[in-house]
């Protein structure tokens, strides 16, 4: 550091002598020359950049926006996929985390980006739910086209390990006897567990009180500690507790039973055919993107999700691979959207 101070002293002296030796005009000329030179370089560089376009998609790095902080379950999907995608597309696919607003900040950034296929989005149901529950959001679900429905995790109705209800019927019976008394935790207003809870209320005709917590982890903890009576969390986050027995699963809100917990009945078996809810993860681009690019992305995703290693990784994390291409995904989302908007209206979420 002493050297830095000496250096500055030397520079101060030198510049003094410089001022004496060369006149003002000459120094100005040098600076002007430098500026012009830099400008020329800039212009040349820009010209070269524009010349590079025109080749086939993709010709440069693709940004895969993950609207959640790194390490969460959604983010994991992006990170498991992006290396394989880079290989398949022969261009780097980089995961960019843009967390905030429960996912809305990241989604909005993609909505505002150019529809050139270089900014793609990995998202959870937030993209469908939040425009309906949050006033003033600058995007709608239909601004985006899903090119793949990648994974899903069904919601599980669970209670604390020593809760007095051993089956779904017990729970529903108690809820009917004491309207408004039982409580359930969710990950927050407008999140999937909240929707699941309201769906439960409607389909089973019970009145349970919603206690919004801040995130799925806190919702799970609230149920574990018995601070609320039940919770509706996606299966991936619950596996370890179900295994350890700290939580008891009463039903799975899906069409098929869970592979790892085959003893847990589905809500359909219990007589509630419409009571399904799952946390899905899908890939989206802006609807205005060209069909050729859209097709390329959907093909690449379908192939990536068939990769053995990737299937293994998803299994480890507890996610079911859906791998639905654009047409099937579109159908799925149509049904989802209907269900979701109905529940939002009935439960008056966001008003």
């Amino acid at each position, binding site marked *: 550091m*002493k050297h830095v*101070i000496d250096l*500055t002293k030397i520079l101060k002296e030198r510049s003094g002598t410089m001022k004496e030796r060369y006149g003002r005009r000459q120094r100005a000329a040098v600076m002007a020359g430098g500026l012009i030179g830099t400008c020329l370089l800039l212009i040349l560089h820009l010209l070269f950049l524009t010349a590079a376009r025109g080749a086939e998609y993709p010709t440069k790095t693709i940004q895969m926006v993950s609207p959640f902080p790194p390490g969460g379950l959604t983010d994991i999907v992006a990170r498991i996929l992006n290396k394989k995608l880079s290989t398949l597309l022969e261009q780097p696919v980089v995961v960019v985390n843009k967390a905030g607003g429960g996912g809305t900040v990241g989604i909005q950034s993609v909505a505002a980006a150019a529809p050139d296929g270089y900014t793609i989005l990995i998202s959870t149901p937030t993209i469908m739910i939040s425009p309906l529950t949050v006033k003033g959001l600058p995007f709608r679900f239909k601004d985006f086209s899903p090119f793949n429905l990648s994974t899903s995790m069904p919601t599980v109705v669970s209670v604390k390990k020593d809760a007095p209800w051993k089956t779904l019927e017990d729970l529903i019976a108690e809820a009917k006897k004491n309207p408004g008394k039982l*409580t359930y935790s969710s990950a927050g207003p407008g999140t999937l567990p909240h929707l699941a809870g309201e769906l439960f209320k409607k389909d089973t005709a019970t009145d349970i009180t919603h206690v*919004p917590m801040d995130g799925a982890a806190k919702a799970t*903890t609230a149920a574990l500690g018995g*601070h609320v009576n039940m919770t509706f969390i996606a299966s991936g986050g619950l*596996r*370890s507790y179900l295994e350890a027995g700290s939580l008891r699963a009463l039903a799975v809100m899906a069409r098929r039973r869970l592979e790892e917990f085959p003893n847990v009945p589905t809500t359909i078996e219990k007589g509630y055919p419409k009571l399904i809810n799952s946390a899905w993860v899908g890939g989206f681009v802006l609807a205005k993107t060209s069909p050729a690019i859209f097709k390329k992305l959907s093909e690449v995703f379908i192939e990536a999700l068939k990769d053995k290693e990737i299937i293994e990784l998803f299994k480890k994390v*507890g996610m079911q691979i859906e791998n639905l291409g654009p047409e099937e995904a579109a159908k799925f989302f149509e049904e989802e959207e209907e269900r979701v908007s109905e529940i939002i209206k009935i439960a008056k979420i966001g008003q």
Partner: protein
Amino acid sequence: MDVLDKIGLGLSIALTPANLLFCFVGTVFGTLVGVLPGFGPVGAFSLLLPLTYKMEAASAIIMLAGVYYGAMYGGSTTSILVNIPGESASIVTCLDGYQMARQGRAGPALGISAFGSFIGGTLGVVGLMFLAPILGQAALSFGPPEFFALTFLGLTLVSYLSRGSTIKALIMAVLGLLAGSIGMDPISGVPRFTHGSTTLMDGVGLVPVAIGMFGVAEVLENIESTTSISIFKTKIKGLLPNFKDWKDSFWPILRGTVLGFFVGMLPGPSGTIGSFASYAMEKKFSRYPEKFGTGVIEGVAGPETANNAATTGAFIPLLSLGIPISGTTAILLGVLMIHGVQPGPLFIGKYPEIFWGVVTSMYVGNAMLLVLNLPLIGIWVKVLKIPYFLLFPFIFLFCLFGVYTLNNNLIEVFIMLIFGIIGFLMRKTGFEGAPFLMALVLGPVMESSLRQSLLISHGSPTIFFTRPISALLVIVGLACLITSLFPMFRRKREDLSKKIGDVS
């Protein structure tokens, strides 16, 4: 003893050359990351994540854990040197640490910070080893009413963070609470005060506000007069803490360890809360509380120890129950899951190698960090000798980059600048930033916990008093509130007479 066997198992894993290397890489990276304001462990994790795929689960966690507690070592560096908190848990270190630096005592400040961090971290690991399973269960008994009581208690201590007028501190706290309410209402989802901005939906972030209010404002104040005044006394009084420093810091360090460790287990920004609480505690127990804020070493020793103990404490819910209490621990959870390891209540029993391997590597890591950071003190102190006219643009750059790299969000940079202006104005009018920040951190938790509790109790406020833990905390909080308001009436008269003679 059974535990000794397990420690042996752990050491056999932690001391393999590969894991030693990973530990070293993690801790060095963590220190670097901690020094950079804004860019915290989360950012570092996302960089290292791809590397961890090919590693074994234990190695991955060893490295990432190193980054996590390493950041707590580095975070205090910029707090002390340039009044910019490197981590939100180091905000409190700015209060006295920076003043010590201005008095030429940056060396002892950095030194006691390093030693305190070491002691807090190491003792915390001991606690982790023996108490993990029990404490994990205890953490579950904290529900919304307990969180409300805890944050309420924390807020009543706000007046301890300020040196000057109590009214102004209270005003700052209320403003902090208001700022904390900006964003999506955590219970109903309705946006408050956001004016349509999606960035604000998450509220004003703590990091942009802290860096703006402390860092940017500080530089603005310094360059206002003239940059040739040496901001830092050039005569450096020693590089390491002297005997008196150690004597003064002894109890703060011990108290900080215990406090930090237990607070660290609680969800939320536990490192930040732990360090704030330690500062308030030290001020309360001190024989000269009015000197806090002028460069008192207890104000550095306690909080720095506490935040390291807290990071260790944060591992308890993660390892014993599989519950992440913050974004950082959530990533560690994700890493475990990618490796096919299921964190949860059965974790310690099912994967003893990972648990004990990670825990013993924490000893190693803390030792490495101490050895690393001590020589660095000499270098850091020399940095302060750079003339301010060269230093200050670099400090600004630091702040700008730090905030931007947090979320790649330019709006947060603007928030930082706005709070820089606000912080500057605050300094000119005698308002302090620490109560504001504390309220900003605690406020949202307090409000959501209150409303959640009322939902659970179906509207009855007696829930706070029928549950033992929350009842205790609420009563202590009320007591603190009343005792701190009382002297306010007496002090107001003193303040008035002081101000007439004041020429600030």
